[in-house]
């Protein structure tokens, strides 16, 4: 089929698919989002429950056994036995207690949770199905100093970060599209005034202001109130560049023939904006949104890392990394797996960057394909 017969959407899709890395990253993001949305179910433990008898358990992905003395067997783990480190006082190691064997089970009953805060459930995708104080536990990515399962924490933290970014991007987009649209469509003194506002906002020291604003949120506020406040604060500092993009698009499209034609037959401004201009800016808006996600993810985790972001019992990747930093000498010397949330953060940001790049190239009609 020749390019001329394809719709713009199909053209963009075709060009996007051609960028292998970007396409793979989009799939990765999709998968991660699905996993994070079902975080409570996929996580084998409640992320907040402390397993007092199992602090600093190393990742157990290499302790899954599929072979015993009788040949192949259903995957199982041995019981954990804590032994002191031969050289360092206060540091413990975990050995496999071969006398006890715990098969890994699918759809197992475990610690109860409320799925999305609504449905009480205790079904988990996998686990050993033993009580919290039993030696037979399966900590896929290990535990931290209070025996909380790192894998569950990473999943729940990823959900927090992604939901927060989605809220921030959505609200700053509403603000940016509304103000940018008004500014670009009406022009004149409205445009001048709004552009001054955008300039002032962009001229503010972003992180310094963000820190001051988050520090102003009372520390005794309930965690969810804090979550919403942080989201609001992040939206407040990130709407301005978007408004600028939207304004540019509106300014250009305002002069197009079809907009003039709509005006000539007496369409209202609201109709022209909603039916004629906005649909034509969607591709740019999607690109801008994708490229804005990494910034928001990073800002949120930096805030949490510096101690002004989310608080326990909420978890986020930045918060988990802050806990690593708090006693970094022992943590990094003996328990390096605690850095794993960082790997997840890096991969997610990388994926969003790659998708954003690929989308931008696919949407831009003036780039020449390399193939």
């Amino acid at each position, binding site marked *: 089929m020749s390019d001329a017969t394809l719709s713009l959407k199909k053209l963009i899709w075709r060009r996007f698919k051609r960028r292998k890395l970007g396409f793979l990253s989009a799939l990765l993001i999709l998968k991660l989002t699905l996993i994070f949305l079902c975080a409570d179910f996929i996580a084998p433990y409640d992320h907040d429950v402390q397993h007092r008898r199992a602090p600093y358990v190393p990742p157990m992905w290499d302790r899954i056994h599929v072979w015993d003395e009788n040949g192949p067997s259903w995957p199982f783990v041995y019981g954990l036995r804590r032994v002191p480190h031969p050289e360092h006082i206060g540091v413990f190691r975990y050995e496999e207690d071969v006398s006890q064997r715990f098969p890994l089970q699918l759809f197992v009953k475990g610690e109860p949770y409320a799925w999305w805060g609504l449905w009480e459930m205790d079904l988990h995708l996998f686990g050993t199905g033993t009580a919290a104080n039993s030696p037979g536990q399966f900590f896929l990515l290990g535990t931290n100093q209070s025996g909380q399962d790192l894998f569950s924490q990473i999943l729940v933290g990823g959900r927090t970060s992604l939901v927060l970014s989605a809220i921030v991007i959505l609200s700053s987009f509403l603000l940016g599209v509304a103000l940018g649209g008004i500014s670009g469509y009406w022009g004149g003194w409205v445009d001048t005034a709004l552009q001054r506002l955008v300039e002032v906002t962009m001229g503010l*020291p972003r*992180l*310094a202001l963000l*820190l001051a604003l988050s520090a102003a949120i009372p520390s005794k506020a309930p965690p969810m109130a804090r979550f919403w406040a942080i989201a609001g604060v992040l939206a407040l500092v990130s709407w301005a560049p978007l408004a600028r993009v939207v304004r540019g698009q509106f300014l250009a499209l305002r002069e197009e023939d079809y907009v003039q034609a709509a005006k000539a037959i007496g369409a209202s401004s609201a109709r022209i904006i909603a039916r004629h201009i906005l649909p034509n800016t969607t591709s740019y808006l999607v690109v801008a949104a994708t490229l804005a996600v990494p910034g928001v993810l990073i800002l949120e985790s930096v805030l949490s890392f*510096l101690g002004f972001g989310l608080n326990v019992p909420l978890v986020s990747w930045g918060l988990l990394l802050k806990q690593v930093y708090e006693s970094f000498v022992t943590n990094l010397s003996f328990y390096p797996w605690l850095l794993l949330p960082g790997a997840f953060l890096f991969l997610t940001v990388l994926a969003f960057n790659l998708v954003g790049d690929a989308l931008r190239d696919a949407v831009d009609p003036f780039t020449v394909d390399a193939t």
Partner: protein
Amino acid sequence: MLLFVLRRLLYMIPMLFLLSLLSFAVMQLQPGDFLSKFALQLSQETMAQLRERYGLDEAVWVQYWKWIWGIVSRGDFGMSFETQQPVLAHLFLNGDRLGWTLLLTGIVFLFSWMLALPLGIYMATMAHSGRLWSWKSIVSAFKAPAARAQGPRPARWADGLRAIGVWLINALAMVGLSLPNFLTALLILWLLVAVFQVGQNFGLGISGLFDVEYRSAPWSFGKFLNFLWHLWPVVLVVGLGNIAQLIRYTRANVLDVLGEPYIQTARAKGLQERAVIYKHAVRNALNPLVSLLGFWIPLLFEGLLVAAFVFQLPVVEFAYWRALATEDQYVVMSGLLFFGLVLLLGNLLSDVCLALVNPRIRYE
């Protein structure tokens, strides 16, 4: 030009006024009284004195007025309740914080531009050459001669190396873009602690800009080496993201210029490729980069804030973070004002530099 600078400086006054209002408002949002948090450290008399001086018992607008009037009339930005010093001394002088901030920012800035500009230019020329620097070209370059002697020009070893270089720089740019600077800092800490076995003693040897024995010693060669040893983590933490972005910007801009007709003319009249790139392409591609000078300042600030937090550096950013953590109000408000001022000055500087680099730009 002078008039332009003056006018811009005048424009800054309303901006700074707005910023001062904003930072005051942010601080008013905090629950409770400024001083009550420091009730244990301060005596009754000083408390009363401070209340009187900054009008803490009076209406909000009186407080604001007293603060602003103190700044305008006496250069008094308030007092740090933590150290009971004037704010300016607290923010800028303790251990020469302002000096270190400027020095470190300058070093990182120079380093990242000196590294990223050549890399970006190289990437642009490679992209412009019209050949695909994919893994296929690497494979075909290292294949046996008979197998690769197809196509317009046989791929050579040099092409394979070039393709690897392009791939590496691309990877560096993408990783640098996606690695949050606090994560870089944590990875460097891991490298220092777990691999180099430094800082086992409560992080000594990592934190600060010098080891303990050098801290109050006069400058010597040993102290300088020690400084370098403490410098590279900071440079990496602050610089990596900058370098990645700068490579991408430079590449895009140089690539744009390389498509211009005057580049073709320069080639057609027989100029050497080196002259075409450096005299014609790069000089014209620099303009948009210079106009972004002001844009790097927030990035440098954010990076240095994180580095200062992780490595406990004696810089202004650390004082700001500490003031936020201890709720030292006047320091926070003045810090916000200061960072806003730096941002405004940076934008002005980039406009001035733009006029210097590009004679076509006149500010009349």
